[in-house]
């Protein structure tokens, strides 16, 4: 593979093009609306000097992680149950296909009411955002386990519980993993909503309060941080999956990935 192909694959070229495009776009516009890369970078320095940008990223990240982990922990058993037990699936499916259209943002007030203005309501909001996608993916995974696998385990003397543990769950790992990975995306989407109300710190809070004071460059710092956080987490997760879960058939790279050969 030539050097140019490696360069292309690394994504560096992409970023150079994006930066140039961004700069060109911003030159003609008012920096209050579309700050260029330089402006944004300056804002980033400004916010980093006392370490608060990093603290905010850390705080938001901790919230996303907590909500995502708890959301997955709640969703996977539900998904397994829905996949294995037809009555439960039939009963819950209409409700899930109803509630999944209700945006997390719509629940802000209610979650504040129910869980208070502290961390709980923020984490619950992110949990909510991860829940359905993981449930539905897990369920789909369970439904696509080959009947032959279950049958062979059963004729080798495995009980229903052992079949769940040793056949269904391992077979479903790739689906669960994909669901979790997609849910990580929606978790990041929900962080702005979660930190819009009653937050004192976090990237979402920063974006929101910068809007109130019309500091567009800080908004861009926030957006950029979110993108980078999401991108890095996604790649890390992919890498983790391909290393730790390779025996379950998970391969590395982004969910959707392009590479030159």
């Amino acid at each position, binding site marked *: 593979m030539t050097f140019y192909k490696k360069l292309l694959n690394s994504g560096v070229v992409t970023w150079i093009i994006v930066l140039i495009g961004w700069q060109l776009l911003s030159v003609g516009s008012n920096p209050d609306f579309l700050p260029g890369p330089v402006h944004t970078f300056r804002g980033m320095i400004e916010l980093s000097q006392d370490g608060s940008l990093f603290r905010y990223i850390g705080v938001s990240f901790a919230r996303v992680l907590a909500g995502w982990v708890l959301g997955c922990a709640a969703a996977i058993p539900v998904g397994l149950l829905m996949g294995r037990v037809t009555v439960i699936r039939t009963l819950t499916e209409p409700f899930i296909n109803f509630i999944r259209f209700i945006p997390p943002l719509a629940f802000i*007030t209610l979650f504040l009411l129910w869980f208070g203005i502290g961390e709980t309501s923020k984490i619950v909001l992110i949990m909510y955002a991860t829940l359905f996608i993981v449930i539905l993916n897990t369920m789909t995974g369970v439904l696509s386990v080959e009947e032959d696998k279950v049958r062979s385990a059963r004729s080798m003397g495995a009980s229903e519980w052992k079949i769940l543990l040793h056949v269904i769950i391992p077979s479903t790992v790739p689906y669960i993993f994909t669901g979790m990975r997609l849910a990580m995306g929606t978790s990041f989407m929900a962080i702005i909503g979660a930190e819009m*109300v009653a937050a*004192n710190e976090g990237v979402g809070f920063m974006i929101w*309060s910068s809007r*109130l004071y019309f500091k567009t460059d800080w908004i861009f710092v926030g957006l950029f941080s979110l993108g980078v956080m999401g991108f890095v987490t996604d790649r890390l997760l992919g890498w983790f999956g391909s290393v730790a879960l390779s025996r379950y058939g998970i391969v590395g790279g982004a969910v959707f990935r392009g590479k030159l050969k």
Partner: protein
Amino acid sequence: ASTQTAAPGAAAEVSANQQTPVKVRLAIDTAAGGSFQFRIAKDKGFFQKYGIEPEISNFAYGIDTVNALLISKADTALAADYALINSLGKGNMTVVSALTRTNEKSAAKTLLFVRDNINKPEDFKGKKLGVAKGTVYEYVWAKYLEKNHIDEKEVKYVPYSTPDEAFVSLQKGDMDAVWIGGALIDKFKTIKGVKSLIDVSGSGVNISSYLLLDSSFVKNNPDAVSSVLKALDEGIRYIPDHKEETAEVAFKELKLPKDRVLEDLQSTNYTLGFTQEDFDHLQDVKQWVENKGILKDKYELKDKINIDPLKKALPETATYKP
């Protein structure tokens, strides 16, 4: 020091023992105004000095602090007169003091920005007026139009939630006029084809804001409330000489841009107290809101005011007699 939440039963004990700080959950806003007297009072230890352990939570708007109080997630809230009147009917809230009042200097910092085709009040007919949802500007517009004999039906309100929306809309002609206060007026002055017509005194509205508390909290912890007010008073007195420092605090805690905060401090008139004028003013607003049919929950204004803690803390400012 061990902390103790102000539970009703323990109230007498708590106020008797100044050694045990009383925890008070203060909900304050980050938007224009910024409630810096609270932040300074906390930062400078004024609350601690009076035996209060403050727990501050930030909300974008005053209305959100009222909601937090309503759902018992906070003990205090702040609201401008109009939102206050609209909310008082819900839940058990008590007004304990004014927090800001318009004076000439602060009024001059809230301006009506209009596009060039508007020169006199009559020109507003058929125009698009920007109004921040859930804020006192709903009232300001209504009063202004009323004063100039323009039917609200002849204009079109364009609701918005953050100033950047107003800025863009005004620039693009999606709005023809909007009230803007504080730090952002300089920015709005730079928009081409837009000028400031009058300041808020021209609307005939004096915007003031008030400190609200949960009624039972006031009943059970009158001394704690007094202490809060004393601490706030020190905060208010500290700010004028320490504007830079205040801005530092705002940046440190909230990442609010320093220059904007300094601007805001210029235009905000922090105060404490409750006078007959305050009452009359609120009564006026209430009357107006009732006449408009906006007010859903009926209540008596005087039942919603308790200035006993204020009297105890700052007797000279509490001149209202129920």
